[in-house]
């Protein structure tokens, strides 16, 4: 989930350090961490040194980064121009209060955070890592109006799924928003979490994805995180809800994961085509930027 992105970034930095240290040791111990090959000492960047100091890191992640991140996401979201494909699918589910598990690719978190937190787009809970790094993202998501369930993988992840199921059972109008490819990937590979929640709440999996232009794509992250640039055009595509049988064998579950994966890929293609102007057929209206009413006066187009 989103919180892991911060974690991934920090972990990546840590792993890079560790990797360099290992390389140094393997190389007959001549090149150590913090040194370059010619033997001159390489000074760690100031921010990295600060982040290694846990109280400072805690302060930054809990007090400094959340308001900055929130302001950034809100201001970017405000400038993005959303077009929603098949919006009626979301509206129908909300009208019936059918438990809904919105599944999206982890890398599309940012444009979808803006959309899903928008007024008229439903109430959602999201899963966010329990780590210290996840604290920052959890705070941002709470401020955006999401209910945050902590946990990402392993036992914590399973507990988060249990908590989401319990919440969805007591409040069917509260949808679950979950990355289909989990918190660590592999990218684009659907895991069982979304199906597990839908199955145990009597709900459906609603594939959702986004495409944006212009946007930054961070190719060094496992999920190829995409961040639309200011005033980007963002296409949000909502797929056909996927019914989940009450009982599923292990094989049937694997097959259903593959099926959802294929649907997600096709939906992504549809969103990409819409953005490229290749798609024919009706699309939703171009909405106002997040937070402002649509100039056409169409209430359904108000995204926040």
């Amino acid at each position, binding site marked *: 989930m989103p919180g892991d992105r911060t974690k991934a970034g920090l972990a990546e930095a840590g792993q890079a350090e560790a990797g360099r240290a290992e390389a140094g040791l393997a190389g007959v111990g001549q090149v150590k961490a913090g040194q370059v090959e010619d033997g001159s000492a390489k000074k760690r960047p100031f921010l990295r040194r600060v982040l290694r100091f846990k109280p400072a890191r805690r302060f930054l992640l809990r007090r400094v980064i959340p308001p900055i991140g929130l302001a950034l996401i809100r201001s970017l979201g405000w400038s993005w121009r959303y077009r929603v494909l098949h919006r009626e699918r979301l509206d129908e589910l909300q009208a019936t209060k059918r438990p809904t598990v919105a599944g999206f690719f982890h890398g599309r978190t940012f444009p979808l955070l803006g959309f899903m937190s928008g007024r008229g787009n439903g109430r959602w809970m999201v899963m966010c890592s329990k780590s210290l790094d996840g604290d920052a993202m959890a705070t941002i998501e709470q401020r955006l109006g999401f209910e945050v369930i902590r946990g990402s993988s392993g036992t914590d992840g399973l*507990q988060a799924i*249990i908590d989401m199921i319990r919440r969805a059972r007591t409040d069917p109008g509260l949808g679950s928003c979950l990355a289909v490819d989990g918190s660590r990937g592999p990218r684009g590979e659907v895991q069982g979490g979304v199906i597990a929640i839908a199955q145990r709440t009597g709900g459906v999996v609603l594939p959702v994805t986004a495409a944006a232009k212009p946007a930054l794509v961070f190719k060094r992250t496992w999920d190829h995180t995409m961040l639309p640039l200011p005033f980007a055009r963002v296409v949000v595509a909502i797929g056909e809800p996927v019914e989940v049988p009450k*009982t599923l064998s*292990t094989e049937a579950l694997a097959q259903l994961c593959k099926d959802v994966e294929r649907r997600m890929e096709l939906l992504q293609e549809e969103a990409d085509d819409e953005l490229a102007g290749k798609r024919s057929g009706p699309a939703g209206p171009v909405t106002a930027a997040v937070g402002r009413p649509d100039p056409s006066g169409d209430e359904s187009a108000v995204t926040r």
Partner: protein
Amino acid sequence: MARQEILERIRSVVSESATIDIDLGAVSEDTTIADLGFDSLAVLDLLFDLEQEFGIQITAEEIQRIVTVGELITFLQQRMDGSTADAGRSD
């Protein structure tokens, strides 16, 4: 509650939750949860059904620590007795 009585109730829960065909008569205290076909996600069904059957709340950590039906019985006995002891603890 007697262990045998809890075992019978577990058998009834398993008959509802299991995703594979199980000879319920063969389910004993030595049977492992994995033998019953509960993998990492299917164990959710067992957890929710046990909660409903026994009127308790179980965490992911607790259910994951439990390996055998015998350990599950001990855990449920302790939980229903209001004990805070942890049945699944291996140390």
